[in-house]
């Protein structure tokens, strides 16, 4: 049984490669309004109880809010059976919002078309998302909400067997959180498939990120409640992330070049192994400092950029440079001859590395003090050190300085 299952899974995955997934649509005509009743159940729920939403299509005009509960389970009858739609939303910036809760389980439903984020969980200790489809219907567009799944300021997060589609920022996003497992999910038609931001002790494994602008991102931004580190990204399939970038400008993901497999930004202690990174047109894995993102985000607004950089540096805790990164046993391939030309980087690689788009790109901006540590076990990868700080003057494709084996380390997830 198990064997058959694996075989079919492999078959499905194989056939999925290269083929564009269908644009999701929901043409359901008859919907039920259970706003008041369901919200009442949320308010009255006793700790450690289960709220079941039976099979059906439900439409909401306001957000659903759950606050201050412990041990609660919210479950539908299955992701294709219980559908919560916020297509008619009139108020609130998210569909379902969970705040200040402990040990919450959300599972077996679909959630769609919120005006802001589909599911946000903030300030929770222990939250598990399981078998949930979170999506925006129709052609992916700028007007879609930012995040399909959005745990932030949480501790002990598990997000598994979920599907995220159509987010104008990140499909699966975890921010300013600790002890996080993101496993066996699928993300497509998002700007970022999966993104971990300013989070610590994060495991991203067994996911399929495809047909996004960027597949999997690990970012660290200044001025927030905590800075991130210690993330393992392994056994993921990251392919065909060549979708146009439809993030509203101003957001950091708006700077991600279409055709990016993985991207690390200003983050430390990252172990990337046994991933299949395939047919991402522009870059297999990008390693960038916050300096270059600022330069890109600031764009033409030169007047503010200098000041902003100066202010960002005021943040004592924040280190704008990536560091302690290891890449090992990954399969990075690209069958496309040309990078996506929808970003300046695409053009840069077209000119500097014709027919040879890089597997690993580092912006080459070094921390002013201390070492920069990057280890790639395979020496046959196509590499580019941009030297972006000096107008690409010492642009280099020599990987040998980074051909090393990094020290192994354990990821200690706090009693999940």
């Amino acid at each position, binding site marked *: 049984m198990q064997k058959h299952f694996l075989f079919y899974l492999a078959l499905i995955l194989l056939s999925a490669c290269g083929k564009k997934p269908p644009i999701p649509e929901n043409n359901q005509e008859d919907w*039920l309004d259970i*706003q008041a009743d369901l919200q*009442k159940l949320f308010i009255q729920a006793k700790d450690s109880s289960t709220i079941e939403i039976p099979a059906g299509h439900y439409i909401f005009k306001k957000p659903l809010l759950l606050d201050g509960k412990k041990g609660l389970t919210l479950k539908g009858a299955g992701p294709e059976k219980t559908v919560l739609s916020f297509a*008619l939303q009139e108020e609130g910036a998210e569909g379902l919002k969970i705040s200040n809760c402990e040990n919450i389980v959300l599972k077996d439903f679909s959630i769609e078309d919120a005006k802001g984020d589909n599911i946000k969980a903030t300030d929770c200790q222990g939250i598990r998302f399981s078998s949930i489809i979170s999506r925006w219907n129709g052609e992916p567009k700028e007007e879609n909400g930012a995040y399909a799944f959005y745990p932030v300021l949480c501790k002990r997060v598990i997000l598994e067997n979920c599907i995220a589609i159509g987010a104008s920022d990140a499909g699966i996003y975890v*921010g300013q959180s600790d002890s996080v497992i993101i496993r066996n999910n699928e993300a497509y038609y998002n700007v970022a498939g999966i993104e971990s931001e300013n989070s610590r002790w994060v495991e991203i494994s067994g996911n399929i990120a495809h047909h996004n602008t960027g597949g999997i991102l690990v970012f660290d931004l200044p001025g927030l409640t905590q800075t991130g580190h210690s993330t393992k990204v392994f056994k993921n399939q990251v392919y065909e992330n060549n979708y146009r970038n439809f993030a509203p400008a101003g957001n950091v993901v708006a700077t991600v070049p279409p055709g990016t497999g993985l991207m690390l930004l200003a983050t430390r202690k990252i172990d990337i192994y046994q991933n299949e990174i395939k047919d991402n047109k522009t870059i297999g894995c990008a390693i960038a400092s916050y300096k270059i993102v600022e330069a890109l*985000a600031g764009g033409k607004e030169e007047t503010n950029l200098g000041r902003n950089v100066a202010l960002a540096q005021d943040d004592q805790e924040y280190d704008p440079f990536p560091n302690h990164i290891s890449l090992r046993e990954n399969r990075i391939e690209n069958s496309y001859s040309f990078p996506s030309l929808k970003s300046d980087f695409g053009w840069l690689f077209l000119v500097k590395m014709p027919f040879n788009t890089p597997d690993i790109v580092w912006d080459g901006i070094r921390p002013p003090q201390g070492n920069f540590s990057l280890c790639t076990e395979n020496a046959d990868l196509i590499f580019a050190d941009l030297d972006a700080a000096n107008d690409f003057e010492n642009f280099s494709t020599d990987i040998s300085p980074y051909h090393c084996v990094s020290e192994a380390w354990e990821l200690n997830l706090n009693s999940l």
Partner: protein
Amino acid sequence: MKRLLTLVLLMAFVACQQEAPQINVSKGQLASKTISDYPSTLSAWGFFEEPLSNLKAKKELIPYDLISPLFSDYAQKTRFIKVPKDSVINYQETEILDFPIGTVLIKNFHYSEAQLGEARIIETRLLVHESDAWKALSYVWNEEQNEAFRSLSGASIPLELNGKKGQKIAFNYSVPNEVQCKSCHEYQGKMSPIGPKARQLNHKFAYGFKYENQLAHWEELGLLQGLPAVDKVPNMVNYFELREDLDLRARAYLDINCAHCHRREGPAKNSGLYLTYQEQDAYKIGWNKPPVAAGRGSGGMQYALVAGEPEKSILYHRMASLDPGVMMPELGRKLNHEQGLDLIYQWIKSKKQHE
């Protein structure tokens, strides 16, 4: 040929149909219990003399107001506090006063005849200080205006305001559900009042014919202890007081309208945008600060605030929006606050680059 054309037209028709499917919404039901932790009617609390709609409070209720109140779709607010007998409020300099357990804050939301064609009380919100936290309750007034009923899951009330130029402004006034209250009323993860801070109360109020500082009055009544000399108590400017400093006016406006979430201890701490009256860090206030999780709220702009350029400032853009996925605050506002917008516009405009 003709048949082909018909077919094409038919296909086009079907395609259009698919693009905008007919949506029928009918009422569904989930089993839920009734609750009985607090009275289901406002009259049962016994705060007001009959007829209720005069909002004539019994003696043990003390009326108060705030120097710079939160904007709530132009609703007028009448506030009272009830402190339990033999209990006392302890003074706090910057945060909410330390109210004793059993305190009830009562806030009535109403519109005047000039605003609505007839005077109407919409809802009465209570904040009850229970033993470990505050509890929010909302009572929605009936059309007869002789009773208000507790609403657990909120309500939408269609209203039509008279605009300045004689136009009608129709909107759905939103009564929050009891968790929504906490979306704003949250401090360090717990439900908390927002307004009654020393700096918001530190001005004169008319008690009948007596015009007296509110804090001094509370002290006189034996309700407040630990009050320093009044000149040592912080105060805030009224954001509509044109004689006051523009910077302080704008900061007062942002403090009461935004800072309950946008502060280190509030639910929007993840944004890194902090707007309390005391905040001194220009970057945290938003000057040249890129957004963190704004999504399409950014409106394609780079920074929360850009000196001299309100049109390039995300903060102004989100204050001016009515789109639920963009607008700020996220709750409690269905209309734009024209005067507030104007104030923030002037404030951003007045700043010079590299200041």
